[in-house]
């Protein structure tokens, strides 16, 4: 214990030294940046021009996914995923509430971490982005024609869904590993009996190649370590998946010390093709597990939530040759595979060196059965037999590595707050640039694929302190853009991010932009409460429920005068946007409604509920400045006493 504290203290001291060294650079760099070079020109995207790349940056504790342009760093959209968003009525309107259903009931928030873009043959195809909810384990699929969340699947038997959501090179699977090991099935037991009793579930979620629809194919029940991050093998190592682990000590308290004792933790190498074959031949055990599967339909404009009841589990010992452990120093965080699939980088966050394993050597070691013992029956390979090389003393606190496809790797260092470029194969450090401050992950567009677009590197920083105008105790986190097209990296741009930018996925804009939808066709609207023609606008009473079938088009609602609503009624506004023109959404809200506005895209129908509590005549209006007559786009509802006999009637344009 004392020894560990000493090590930590000396680490922090070293960190201090290094940052002092950087201090000189930093002061020198700050304030001259763009003027000293042509950095400003490189990030300037003239008015009306488009960015070269989309960057999908995770919103961290905001629960959302932000869409930026690179190189400008301009924010285009925040896609609501796991958290309610009153601006877009996400999780507020009747249509999207089911998207946030879980086995724990309605969960209005999550912590979104690692976006990854779908691939075909190991290259980005730009159809979907997947992202994990960390807290209440879920995986979301965002459709890149609508830039909306199309599907959310809950991951049972998982807790702290962190080694997620990474996809295999033909989007066969999106993989979600658990950070916390837990009792499976959950039960009442002493926490101190963790060791040997908890399990870590690694979930392989299949993705339908046409619809993108997700389904949990199997869960691999691993020993009770913490599974931190993961990456698929690609090209030659396609068919394998690699997971970093920490807390192989299986400590259940004061992990900062107790989970930092082993010299080496593991990278778990999982041959998922082998397990897939086993499962396809009837292998595995079905166990009861409650989890929600939520799907949004673009034709009904409505989500449905289905509660699932069982999941297929696989004991790794039942599939010999499917799982091996690669010893990796010390509590590795990022687990990154280079574009050729040969090298597996373990970013040992408490190690001074960076460990790189060789896939070829791993196969040879397996072939020759050169094991160094086992853990819970899973063979441990010998460190020396699988080691490809070590990047010596590159910095402090390596977290994550990306590749540019030209033989270079870029590793982020949290403690020494820098990005270090090194050569894959020779392991020599060729450049380093400071990050402001404490960089977490980095991203190169296509960096998770066989074909990276090695022009820019984006660092995602946890701390900004003095980098921007202060905004009280809470200041923004940030991203920084580096030009990596030359021998030396060049810092071009700082830009603020939403929530916490854990990770990002970038893609050339031309792959995605051409598929972006402009409107929804009214003729294809299958919402059960849609009003397709103006003649269909009406109000219906069913007991104390009042259903308003309303249309909206520049610049009026139909109907816009409604009488016969009573105190105690539950009023459903089913509003259909009749526009069929690009970029003409309308919004609607009712005074005193205990919910958000609706923001309705052309051709779409959405519903909000209003429960009038007082008699009177109450207005509603369009909340999105839609046209020159936007201010005229309004209406009234007369609310009568509960026992009144005011006749239900509605109108538009009658005097």
């Amino acid at each position, binding site marked *: 214990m004392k020894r560990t504290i000493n090590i930590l203290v000396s680490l922090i001291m070293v960190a201090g030294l290094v940052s002092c060294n950087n201090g000189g650079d930093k002061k020198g760099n700050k304030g001259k940046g763009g003027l000293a070079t042509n950095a400003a020109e490189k990030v300037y995207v003239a008015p009306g021009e488009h960015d070269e790349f989309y960057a999908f940056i995770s919103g961290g504790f905001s629960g959302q996914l932000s869409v930026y342009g690179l190189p400008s760093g301009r924010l285009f959209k925040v896609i609501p995923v796991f958290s309610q968003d009153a601006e877009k009525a996400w999780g507020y309107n009747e249509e999207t509430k089911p998207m946030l259903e879980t086995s724990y009931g309605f969960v209005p928030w999550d912590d979104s971490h690692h976006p990854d873009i779908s691939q075909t043959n190991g290259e980005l195809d730009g159809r979907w982005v997947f992202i994990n909810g960390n807290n209440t384990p879920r995986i979301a699929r965002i459709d890149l024609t609508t830039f909306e969340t199309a599907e959310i699947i809950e991951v049972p038997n998982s807790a702290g869904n962190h080694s997620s959501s990474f996809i295999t090179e033909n989007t066969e699977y999106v993989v979600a590993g658990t950070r916390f090991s837990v009792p499976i099935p959950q039960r009442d037991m002493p926490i101190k009996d963790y060791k040997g009793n908890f399990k870590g579930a690694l979930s392989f979620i299949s993705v339908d190649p046409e619809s993108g629809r997700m389904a949990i194919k199997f869960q691999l029940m691993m020993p009770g370590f913490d599974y931190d991050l993961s990456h698929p093998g690609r090209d030659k190592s396609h068919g394998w998946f690699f997971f970093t682990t920490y807390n192989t000590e299986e400590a259940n308290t004061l992990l900062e010390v107790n989970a930092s004792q082993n010299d080496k933790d593991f990278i778990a190498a999982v041959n998922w093709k082998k397990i897939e074959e086993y499962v396809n031949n009837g292998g595995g055990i079905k166990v009861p597990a409650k989890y929600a599967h939520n799907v949004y339909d673009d034709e009904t404009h409505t989500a449905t939530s289905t509660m699932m009841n069982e999941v297929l589990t696989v004991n790794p010992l039942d599939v010999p040759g499917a799982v091996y452990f690669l010893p990796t120093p010390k509590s590795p965080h990022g687990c990154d595979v280079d574009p050729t699939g040969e090298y597996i980088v373990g970013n040992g966050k408490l190690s001074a060196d960076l460990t790189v394993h060789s896939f070829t050597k791993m196969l040879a070691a397996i072939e020759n059965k050169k094991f160094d013992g086992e853990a819970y029956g899973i063979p441990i390979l010998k460190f020396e037999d699988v080691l490809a090389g070590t990047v010596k003393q590159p910095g402090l606190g390596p977290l994550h590595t990306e590749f540019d496809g030209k033989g270079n790797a870029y590793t982020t260092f949290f403690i020494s707050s820098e990005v270090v470029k090194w050569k894959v194969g020779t392991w020599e450090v060729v450049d380093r640039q400071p990050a402001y401050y404490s960089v977490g992950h980095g991203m190169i567009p296509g960096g998770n694929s066989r074909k990276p677009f090695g022009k820019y590197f984006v660092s995602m920083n946890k701390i900004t302190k003095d980098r921007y105008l202060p905004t009280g105790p809470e200041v923004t986190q940030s991203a920084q853009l580096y030009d990596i097209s030359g021998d030396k990296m060049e810092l071009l741009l700082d830009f603020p991010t939403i929530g916490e930018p854990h990770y990002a996925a970038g893609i050339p804009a031309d792959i995605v932009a051409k598929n972006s939808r402009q*409107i929804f066709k009214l003729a294809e609207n299958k919402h059960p409460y849609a009003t397709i023609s103006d003649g269909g606008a009406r109000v219906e009473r069913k007991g104390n429920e009042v259903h308003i079938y309303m249309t909206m*088009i520049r610049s009026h609602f139909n109907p816009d005068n409604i009488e016969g609503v009573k105190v105690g009624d539950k009023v459903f506004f089913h509003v259909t946007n009749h*526009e*069929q*023109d*690009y970029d003409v959404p309308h919004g609607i809200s009712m005074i005193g409604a205990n919910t958000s506005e609706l923001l309705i895209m052309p051709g779409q129908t959405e519903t909000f509920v209003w429960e009038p509590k007082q008699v009177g005549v109450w207005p509603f209006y369009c909340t999105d400045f839609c046209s*020159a*007559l936007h201010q005229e786009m309004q209406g009234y509802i007369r609310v009568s006493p509960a026992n009144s006999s005011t006749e239900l009637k509605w109108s538009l344009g009658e005097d």
Partner: protein
Amino acid sequence: MKKAGIIMIIGSLLLLGLFKFPLWNIMLGAPQYPDPLGMDIYIEGIKGVQEFDIKNIDGLNHYIGMKTIPEPKDMWEFQVFPMVIGVMVAIGVIIGLLGFFGKVSYKWFIGWFLVMSILGIMGMYDFNSWLAEYGSDLNPKAIMKLLNPDGTPMTYKPPLIGYQKMLNFDVDSWPAMGAYMMFVGMMLTIVAFFVGKKEYKKVAKKPILKTVTA
């Protein structure tokens, strides 16, 4: 007159392009419409260049009190024009065939051209007066009633041909593929006339040559 007859037939048949391609095109661009809205005017009706352009033009026009763009059933022109073109194509082909077999004079070719030209001018006149009526017969309860600098109510007749700035819109009105095919077709009937004339002269000269050689 074989060559002239064939040219006359081809020229007449080119008018069939009007059943497939628009006669005229009007594009409306504005700051809010970098990708302009557009109308393709066919002899059988008016269609949007993109799927919802007509709906969107009507949506905008309602602010200034213009009527909605007519459906084919709302205008007699859309029934009559196709018949006129159909009949003229048929007559042109028959004349061409008769010319081919030497049954009619090449003068019939220019006759067809003149009739078609008169019909065309009448069509343009009708089209222009429709544009004028459409642009000036405004709903008295229009949302926006705008005045010209001289105090007269502003009207919104798109140009028959060419470019005009109307409020925030840049309006371009130009002939389209159907019109170009008709133009080329009609020019071919003139060519047929001259070729026919030349062929006729050759035929007329032949006996003279014969007598000389004899």
